[in-house]
């Protein structure tokens, strides 16, 4: 069976005042129908860029994708599609939601119009049918008075309700894949819990595949089946969620787990990974994590490859065979 979404070797470069710089290198991940893949990593590690690339949403003038990449949606290659063709796929078969709902919602149109638009464009529904379906969708995402809400403008809704409306819009055409970029980062824990519940139930009921970007390992633990850890533009570890939390196999993952504050845990000093993610033009030679890594050795001046270390578990650490890293148990 084909993965719902399979991206391989996405290397994205941007034109900046320092010339072309490569922000991500050979990023690969895949997610099956009915599963949730988490992508985690510190700010600037390349999570958003990778997903924008997979969605064909990078600006064509100021960015480029290196040859040899691939984006397969249900087995069909999307790379090489014209912007127009890509746009057809987007919203119809694959949809994306963002941290800030106002990046997708237009303040000048009612919620109803915006959700209905995709239905009319991609599904050719009549105005009336689209309106009906819109109300059903708003109800499905837990908006309490959907019949009134279709006439509201986005600013009249709370942050959580806007997020729901954006999810309704993304799900309008029943995509096979939903990419969610920090969908709850700006929300209260209580609203976050509601939105995460919603995403989970959409996954269960509609069988969609979800790519969930977050820097919160708590959200990863609650939501995901598989996890990809990104650092400095590369995937450095990938595993099932249990395996990743219990047997991390990259020092960066270990560092992230150790720095996670945990309510109710014993209060030893919170861990830190010293330093921060370098900018793309300053990525170190060899292992990019080495300058921050407590286990770095001479071998780390070689660039490590992402390689299988157990069934369904890959890691890009030169010293993976010698290290015994600590998970949460």
């Amino acid at each position, binding site marked *: 069976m084909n993965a719902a979404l399979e991206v391989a070797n996405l290397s994205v470069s941007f034109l900046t005042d320092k010339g072309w710089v490569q922000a991500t290198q050979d990023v690969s991940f895949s997610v099956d129908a009915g599963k949730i893949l988490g992508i985690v990593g*510190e700010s600037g590690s390349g999570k958003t860029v990778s997903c924008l690339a997979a969605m064909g949403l990078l600006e064509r003038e100021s960015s480029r994708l290196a040859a040899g990449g691939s984006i397969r949606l249900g087995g069909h290659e999307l790379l090489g599609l014209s912007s127009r063709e890509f746009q057809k796929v987007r919203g119809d078969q694959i949809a994306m939601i963002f941290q800030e709902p106002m990046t997708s919602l237009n303040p000048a149109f009612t919620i109803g119009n915006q959700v209905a638009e995709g239905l009319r464009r991609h599904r050719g529904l009549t105005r009336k049918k689209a309106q009906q379906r819109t109300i059903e969708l708003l109800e499905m995402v837990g908006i309490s008075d959907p019949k009134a809400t279709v006439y509201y403008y986005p600013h009249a809704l709370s*942050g959580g309700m806007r997020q729901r409306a954006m999810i309704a819009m993304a799900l309008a055409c029943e995509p096979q894949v939903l990419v969610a970029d920090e969908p709850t980062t700006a929300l209260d824990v*209580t*609203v*976050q819990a509601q939105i995460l519940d919603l995403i989970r139930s959409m996954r269960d009921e509609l069988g969609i595949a979800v790519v969930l970007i977050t*820097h919160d390992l708590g959200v990863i633990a*609650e939501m995901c089946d598989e996890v990809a850890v990104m650092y400095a533009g590369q995937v450095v570890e990938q595993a099932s969620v*249990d395996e990743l939390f219990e047997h991390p196999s990259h020092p960066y993952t270990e560092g992230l787990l150790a720095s996670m*504050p945990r309510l109710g845990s014993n209060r030893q000093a919170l861990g*830190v990974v010293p330093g921060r993610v370098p900018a793309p033009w300053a990525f170190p030679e060899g292992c990019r994590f080495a300058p921050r890594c407590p286990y770095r050795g001479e071998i780390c001046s070689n660039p490590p490859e992402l390689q299988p270390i157990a069934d369904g578990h890959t890691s890009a650490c030169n010293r993976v065979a010698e290290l015994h890293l600590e998970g949460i148990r």
Partner: protein
Amino acid sequence: MKTSGPDLAPLLRVEGAQVHFRTTRFGRRRTVQAVRGVNLEIVSQETVALVGESGSGKTTLARAIMGLDPLHAGSIMLDQHRIDNLKGAALRSLRSKLQMVFQDPYSSLNPSLSVGASVAEPIRNFFGYSGKKLDGAVEELFERVGLLAEHRHRYPHEFSGGQRQRIAIARALAVQPQLVICDEAVSALDVSTQNQILSLLGDLQRDLGVAFLFVTHDLSVVWHIAHKVAVMYLGELVEFGPVDDVLLNPSHPYTQSLIAAVPVPDPQLARQQHRATIAGEVPDPANPPSGCSFASRCPHSISRCSQESPDWDFVQTPNWRVRCHLHNEL
């Protein structure tokens, strides 16, 4: 920050504080009751966390303590002196005892001043230092917050978010305050940077004896850094007490649902636990309900709850207080 000193007379005492904002919404004038009768005490050298959902009034309360938003009613005492009615020079001299650090340090740092100059300014104003003495004080502060002293000639945009937060902390500490209010000061940072700043705050408390009012919505962070926690809902405090008590055995149904909503960072435990999410949204602060503020969303609410506003009651010890009619029965 876990080494609380002996029990002293409170450094800060907020009594019956109310803050109102007159606004218009959809063309109608209304009065938002952002803070509705808050009592809060902070003992010197301790860290009190103030938690609650967005819009519950945390920032407004913090700003009122700082004298940035006027009180509609109530009083605020610092070191047994009333500070809510200060003006002019008295208000300025209060600033040496009370400082605030914001979520976005960019907003509190002047982009056209070198960061060293930003830190030097309050020292010059308060202590009248100049020349070598001023330089020395700035250098010492930079080292204190973990920055290289030679970076003091750079500008805010040349620093990362975490470094800018260190600079903002250095600036707050420059006047040797007794209480520093941190409003979501680490919320925008990566967890590793966040932890570095939290440990810095802990060191500062240990070495300099500062007290912190730590405004946040992250309960896992509260667990690690605070001695006491105050839970705010719709402009009121609903529970207050030692962190271990409140976070491990929350007494108020609102505190309970806040804690239940925190993601469990352990995949196995997360699967076992079914999380009950609270339904509904926070009522309009321009139209607060007459009974318990949480009644409309509370899974346990009975008719009394929507009629009668609950008073403070002790939970086990006088240090731990809750406002809920049903807390003994739940």
